[in-house]
Every structure is written in structure tokens, then in C-alpha cells.
């Protein structure tokens, strides 16, 4: 699933068949089957304001249709999350992207009811968490879903290992057992040797590794990330992104990742949900967003993205016409443009885009050059 993330692999061009194993649907749907989905959100609302008015907003069509500023002027309520629907498949990295104030942090907190949603249902691994009592909710948080925070949320009075073991301590695990488990996780995130340090003795990146380890310690099925790397400087951020990719490959958790950084979203996300003023603007894979932005807002967002690194061949191919020289190489539709540049430009004949032996289209010099030149 993470093939398009492995950029910078020059051998990808000569081994198109590796990519061809990927059977990504041409257009991934915004919704998947809820029976298979790990997380399934339907009609989710969070309206801040006095309880009586706030609960009326989702159920009153007139109010529900209003824009955020209109609603605030009219009722004094702030609609942080408006009528969201989405599904996250098991093992998927689902990114929610939006600018500050778009409601994305509220959304991720609603998922485990750190913030109580106003309306809608949230199903995690088959359980409707909006109906859960306190005890069941605690069990869910202890065992199934964990979260990584922007400013880490570590306990300054505890050592690294005690921070990592904190969730296990809360569950009531014995000291020896939780220390053993914490040591394992600390090794996994590359913090070996810092077990006895205090958080403030570590750099920001290392502190976030502690946060990551704490979230991993309980072996949850789902991990939520609330802008985990935006407090870090750019180089550290890149390392940490690689770390998440590596961890995802090793432990294969379902992840919901909040960010305001488009390049981070494209790098990590199998699918990306773009939020604006609490509403969904578009859900899709990186190439879908770049290749077919839903509106001007998204188009504006993706304008600066280097298209050749995101778009795949299926997005730039044209239909074959009888005049085409069909002696060119075959490549899979989800090969990233940048990795196909040499193959296309070196041969005189256009490259054939083929899935399962079926010809989907061709890519010639003009198509490639149009993307590379950034037009």
C-alpha cells in the first residue's frame, strides 16, 4: 500500500512489475464497506455552544446547511465538525488535512470521545463507541485505540520508561510485566539507552518518540496522531515521518493522522480527507487530489505540489490511437510519473500503460513533459 511513498528508488523504473502487483482501484471510493472498515464515521457533528442550541443544529436542516460564520452569527454556536462521513480500512493510513480552525483536531478527539460528539455514529472495529458507557469507553482507550499528541503530553515527573509504561500501569498491569513491555517498545522506536532519562532531557524529536512508544505500548489496533510532528523542526520532522512509515510497515496498525502539511499528507497517507470549516472538501488518494481536485480550494492547495512525484501514469495517459507505435515498454498504471520519465523519454515509441494484460492507455513524450514542466 505504501509503494508511492518509496520515492527515490531508481530501480523502480526498471522493475515496473513490482509496482504492478499493486491492485489499487482506479478511483478509490470515499466509502468502503463498513463491515470491513476498522473505523467508520457517519454523520458526525461537533457543535460548541450551549447544550440546548448545539444539539439542535445537526437535526435542523436549515441550521445544518448554514456556513460556519452564518451559524455563529445566528446562534452563537461554533460548528467545529459538520456532517462528516468516512471509513478507514484495516491497516490503512488515513490522513485528515486542513488548515488551523478547520476542525481536524476536534474530529480526532471525537473519535475516542475525548470531546463528546454532538451527533452521528462512530464505529471502531465493529463497536459503536457513541453508545458506550464510561467503563466500556475506558476499556476501548486502554486496549484498542491510542493517541499521539502535538506537544507530546508527557509527564515531566516520570522517567521515559515510566512514561511509556503509563498506559499499562493504568490498566493495572504488574510492574515487572509493564517494564518488560515498555523496554521492548522503547527499543522499537529507537530510544534504547534513554529509559532512565526524564522527558526534558530529551530533544523534541526524541520526546515524540516517547509519545509514540507510549501509544504503541498497549498494542492498540488503531493509532490516532494529532499533528504529531508540527512542533518539530523540519529535519527532525522528516526523520519522524520515516519512522512512522517504518513502524507502519512493521506493526501494521490502522492509523488516522492529522496534519496541516500537504507534503506530509501525501507522503504518509493512503487516502487523504481534506477538511475546510468542519466539512469534507474531498477524500481520495494523493494522485486523485492532485490529478482531479474537487474544487478551487483543493486546486489552490495542491498547486505547489511537484506533480511528477505524486501523479501516476493512469492520471496522464491518453487513449491509444491507431497511429501509435505500439512497440514501447509496458508499465503499470500506478507507477509515479517521475519514475517513468526515463523509460518514456528514452524510447521513441510511447509507453503502454497495462493492468492485468489489458491496455489502458499510452504515455508519450508530450504527456510526460507537460507534467515535468509543471504546466
Amino acid at each position, binding site marked *: 500500500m505504501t509503494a508511492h511513498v518509496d520515492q527515490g528508488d531508481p530501480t523502480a523504473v526498471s522493475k515496473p512489475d513490482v509496482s504492478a502487483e499493486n491492485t489499487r482501484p482506479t478511483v478509490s471510493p470515499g466509502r468502503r464497506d463498513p463491515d470491513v472498515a476498522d473505523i467508520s464515521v457517519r454523520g458526525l457533528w461537533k457543535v460548541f455552544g450551549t447544550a440546548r442550541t448545539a444539539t439542535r443544529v445537526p437535526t435542523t436542516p436549515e441550521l445544518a446547511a448554514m456556513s460556519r460564520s452564518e451559524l455563529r452569527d445566528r446562534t452563537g454556536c461554533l460548528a467545529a465538525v459538520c456532517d462528516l462521513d468516512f471509513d478507514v480500512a484495516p491497516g490503512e493510513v488515513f490522513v485528515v488535512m486542513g488548515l488551523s480552525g478547520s476542525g481536524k483536531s476536534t474530529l480526532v478527539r471525537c473519535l475516542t470521545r475525548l470531546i463528546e460528539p454532538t451527533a452521528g455514529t462512530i464505529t471502531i472495529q465493529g463497536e459503536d463507541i457513541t453508545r458506550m458507557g464510561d467503563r466500556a469507553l475506558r476499556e476501548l*482507550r486502554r486496549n484498542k485505540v491510542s493517541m499521539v499528541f502535538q506537544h507530546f503530553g*508527557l509527564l515531566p515527573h516520570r522517567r521515559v520508561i515510566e512514561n511509556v509504561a503509563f498506559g499499562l500501569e493504568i490498566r493495572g498491569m504488574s510492574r515487572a510485566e509493564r517494564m518488560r513491555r515498555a523496554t521492548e517498545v522503547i527499543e522499537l522506536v529507537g530510544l534504547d539507552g534513554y529509559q532512565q532519562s526524564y522527558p526534558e532531557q530529551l530533544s523534541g524529536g526524541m520526546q515524540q518518540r516517547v509519545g509514540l512508544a*507510549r501509544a504503541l505500548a498497549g498494542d492498540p489496533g488503531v493509532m490516532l496522531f494529532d499533528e504529531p510532528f508540527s512542533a518539530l523542526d523540519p529535519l527532525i520532522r522528516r526523520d519522524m515521518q520515516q519512522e512512522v512509515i517504518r513502524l507502519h510497515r512493521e506493526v501494521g496498525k490502522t492509523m488516522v493522522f492529522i496534519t496541516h502539511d500537504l507534503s506530509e499528507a501525501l507522503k504518509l497517507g493512503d487516502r487523504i480527507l481534506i477538511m475546510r470549516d468542519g466539512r469534507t472538501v474531498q477524500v481520495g488518494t494523493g494522485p486523485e487530489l492532485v490529478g482531479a481536485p474537487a474544487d478551487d480550494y483543493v486546486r489552490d492547495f495542491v498547486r505547489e505540489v511537484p506533480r511528477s512525484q505524486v501523479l501516476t501514469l493512469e492520471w496522464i495517459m491518453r487513449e491509444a490511437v491507431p497511429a501509435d507505435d505500439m512497440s514501447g515498454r509496458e508499465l503499470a498504471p500506478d507507477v509515479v510519473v517521475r519514475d517513468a520519465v526515463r523509460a518514456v523519454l528514452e524510447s521513441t515509441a510511447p509507453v503502454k500503460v497495462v493492468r492485468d494484460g489489458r491496455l489502458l492507455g499510452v504515455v508519450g513524450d508530450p504527456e510526460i513533459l507537460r507534467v515535468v514542466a509543471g504546466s
Partner: protein
Amino acid sequence: MARAARVYRRPGRLTLLLGILVGWLVLYAVLKGTDTISLAPSDVTSLHTRLNDLNTSVGDNRNSNPFFLYFINEIQVGATHFITFLQNLLSQPSGTRPVPVVGWLGVVVIMTVIAGRFGNWRVAVLAAAGFLFLGLQGLWQPSMDTLALTIAAVVICVLIGIPLGVLVAQYRGFERVITPVLDLMQTMPTFVYLLPLTLLFLIGPATGVIAMVIYAMPPVIRLTAHGLQAVSTETVEAGRSLGSTRPQQLAKIMLPMARRTIIIGVNQTIMAALSMVTIAALVAAPGLGQTVLQALESQDVGTAFNAGLAIVVLAVVLDRVTTAASERARATDHARTRLRADPRWRRGADLVALIVTAVAVYLSYTYQLFAAFPDHLAIGGTRLGLDLGTHIESWTSSATSWAQRDLGSITGPIKNGVTYHALNPLQNLLDSSPWWLTFIAIVATAFVLGGRWAALIAATCLGLVVGTGLWQDSMDTLAATLIATVVVVVLGVMFGVWMGRNARADWGIRPFLDALQVMPAFVYLVPFVALFGATRFTGIVAAVLYAAPVAIKIVADGIRGVPAETVEAAGSSGCSTWQVITKVQLPMSVRSLALATNQGLIYVLAMVVVAGLVGGGALGFDVVAGFSQSSLFGKGLAAGAAIVLLGIALDRVTQSAARRAGGHVSHRAT
């Protein structure tokens, strides 16, 4: 009408105030001495007699009335038992033993070990030296009585205050309810609620400790709540996201993270409790307060100074130790000491400390020499005197008589100048005018300064003061308060501007201000009694010194709060330093000036009343007389009420005036 009002410019506030003053003076000249309400010190009104009767009937019925039987008396008995227990432990003969359970050696070692364990070795040395000094002063037993009272009050404060702080942090509504109560507990002159408390809890140590608790509890509540609220929401969320229960969040996340702030709260509570020991002595609470009080009453400056010094030593030791403990509670420090304090090494040190303490306590339990602090040591044939106290007393006495004899030429004119040219005229104007004239003049002034509401409150309060029958004493107290406040504000502006503009001045002066604030109220009085005798002027000087640090700090913070860029802009447009101060910095810190005046007034009033003990006369004297003579109990109670009424009027009028000046004055923040 509105348009007309706009055309005719209303006369300025200053003009109006001058008008009121001139009118008052003219009428005073004509009507002086008529319609005054005066009452000789031993005279009482019918209200006072009725209050006396109330006192008697409460005394008669306290063992039959269920409210007393099952509630008030229970508290009284419980507190008394607790104090007696601590006194048996530390200060008073216990059971059949002629000495307390733990003698001086045990106490010194316990304090040193606690200071070292929770603070650092430096404060451990300080604690040892300080407590030995108390013994050398010849004040071991009263010091331990004071320590016992302080411990009792602080333990009660912590046991009640921390849970309350937790509630305040968790429930918004509760915070709204309790904040005004805490404000009241801190701003009401401590002196005032002693007498009503004796009505309920009788004269004795229990009432003393309860008064200390009332005054000292707010800081620990406020700082506990503040510390808990300051815990980052994300950290709490992280705890919730891991599935912690509310008790787990509190115990494992919030309380540990707020630990340092809570310890600071305990520190302030200890300081507040200690500053009350002298006042608690008025209701027969034992200890150093008694010594100071008796010495002040007999004008024995040497003894008063020695005992006052002991209170300061106790305050400094307890302050430093708890401050060091709060520093240590910081996570950084935690981290820094990590390498040094290997857990095994640390456990070893604890064990050694425990054994040393046990041995010291055993020795002090068993041997007379280590139980009662010896006044001399006989080693071989030489006798080593340990009675530093008598030396201190005689030095002070001779210094006092020298000051009175040789400084009289300096202090005398100052005292007389202020007394004859400011205090007496103002006092005459206030109390020899017909009462209704003073009443009208004050209410009119309140109206000009603070508007309609302020005038209404002033009128109500003054009306009630008239009702107490203590109009003249109230006006005398008001005169002293006003004069002291003027001096406080002048000092506040002078030093505040200096400190606000000059970081080095701030660095140099601030420790002195801190020291003045930590010192218990009565201790101020001692040197001034020496210099100026038992007069009203002494009370004013003590009040100024008590209130000035607060005012100076507030002004300095206000001046520093003026944006540097604005000051630079003024400078770059050619302002002189004087112009920068008067045209930019002072006008922009008008809020701080108003707050400084308001707080200055409240502090001054509290101290002027205390000075009633040493010749300040007026309301303070009435309250004190209420403790000593049961026939004056009702009058004392009425005087307390008059003090509160004056305080409310002054507070409200200055607050409204401040709001009009463009700032909002909030109550003292701890």
C-alpha cells in the same frame, strides 16, 4: 438636555473636591464642637450592653444549645486536644514528665533532617542554626509553643485546603462561589474576627488556631487550584486517551504535576499562620506572641525585640525550607540530581538520617540536658553561659534609651511635625465637625470620586458606623489611615517608578520588600515604639512600612508593563526623563496606581488597627479592651464592625474611582 450638558462643560473632579473641602472647612469653623458623637473609653452605649448580654447568654447556653453542643463545642474541643497534643510533644510538660516528649535536641535534629531531605544541605544548616539560636535566646519553650500552634494551623489548612483546591479546579461553579469568600478571608483585618470567634470558641488557644486557619487557608486553596488548572490540557488528554479514570488522572497526572505550586501554597500558608501568632496571643494563644504582646504593653522594648527576633528567625527558617522544597519539586531539579542521587545511595542516606533522628529523640526524651534548653554549660570547671537572650535584651534596651535620648532631636520634630500639622488637623476636622457634616462631606467625596454606587455604599457604611456609637473613634482611625495611605502612595510611586525603570534598583530593593512582607505584623511595631514611644504616630509609621512593599511592587510592575516601544517613541520625540515618567509611564500605568492605592488602604487599615495596642487608641484600642474586660466586650465587637465598615467603604470607593480612571481593580492575587 443631553445637548445642553454637552455645551456647558462640567466642572473638573479636582474643582469639585476642592469645593467640598472649602465648604467643609467653612462650616467646620462655624459649627465646630456641636453635634459630635463622642464616647469615653469606659463608656458604653445601649447597643454595646445588648452585645454584652448576647455574650453572657451564649456563655450560659453553650452547654444546652444543640448548635453549640454538637457543632461549635466539638470543634473547640477537637482543636484544643490537637494543640495540647502538639504542645505535650514539643513544648509543655507532658503527663507526669516535667518536660515535653521531644526535647530541644530531638526537635533540632528532626528539623535539620527534614530540611535536608526535602530541601538541600544549605537550608538544613540554616534550620539547625536557627533553632539553636531560638534556644540561645532563652525562648525555647515559647518558640516551641508557637511552632506547635503553627503546625496545628497549617495541618488543618492543608487537610481542608488541598481538597477544596481540587474541587475549585474541577468545578467552575464552586470556584465562583468560593472566590469572594477567599477574598474576604484575606482582606478582612485579622484583628476584627477574633472577638466574634471568642464568642463562639471562648478565649484560649483553640480560638487562636481557628483565627490562624481562617487567615492562612486561602493561599493553599488558591495555589492548589491554580497548580491543577495550569497542568497542560494535552497531558490530561493524553491520560484520558490511555483510558485513565478520574481518580487516576488526579493522582498520577495532575497532583504530581502541580506539586511545586501546591508546596508554594503551603509555604504561603505557613507564613500567613506565623504572621498571626502575635494577634492570636490576644486571645491567650501561648507562645512568642504572648511574650511580644506583654512586653509591648509594658513598653519593655528589649524583651519585645528579643521575642520579635525569634518570630523572624522561625519565619525565615520555615520560609527557606519550604521554598527549597518547592524548588526541588521541580522536574528539572529532579533531572539534575538524577546522577548524584543514585536510588541505593539515597536510601542509605535516608536510613542514616532516620537512625540519627531516633537517637537524638531518645536522648532528648531521656536526659534533662537534651530536653530543656540549658542556660549554661559546665565543662570541667568552666561555666559557659548560653543566655544570649539577656544580652540581646540589654543591648536593645540601652540602644532604645540611647535613641530616645540622643535621637530625640531628630525623631521628635518628625513625630511632632506629622502629628501637629497633618494628623491633628485632619482628625479634628473629621471628629469635631458635626457628625452629619462629616458624613455629607465624605459621601460627597465618594460621589465625585466613584459615582453614585460608591456614594451609596459609603453612606450606608457610615450610617452603620454611626449606629455602632463609635463615630469619633472611627473618624480618628480614618484620619490615621488616610495619612498613612498618602505616604504609602507617595513611596509607592517614588520607589515603584525607580524600580520599574531600573532593573538594578529592582534587584537591590526587592529582597528588602520581600523581607518586610514576610515579617509578622507586630514585629514592625517594636523598633518604632522604641523610637517614637507609644503614640498614634508609631502606628502610622508601622502601617506605612507594612503597606508600602505591596504598593511599591504593584507600581513597579505597572511601570515595567508599559511597552518599551512606547517609551522609546517618547524618547525619540525628545521627551526628557521627567516627561517620559509623567506623560507616558505614569498615565499608562494608571491601573496599577489605582490598585496600589486600593491595596495600600486595606493594608494600612489592618495595621493602624493593630497599632491601637501601642497607643494608637481609637478603634484598635476598643477591640483590645474588649478582650480584657468583659464589660467592654460589646463595645469591642462594635468596634470590629466599625473597622469592617470603614474597610468596605474605602475599598469600594477606591475601586469605583479606579474603574472610572480606566482600570479595574481586582483583589489581591496570591
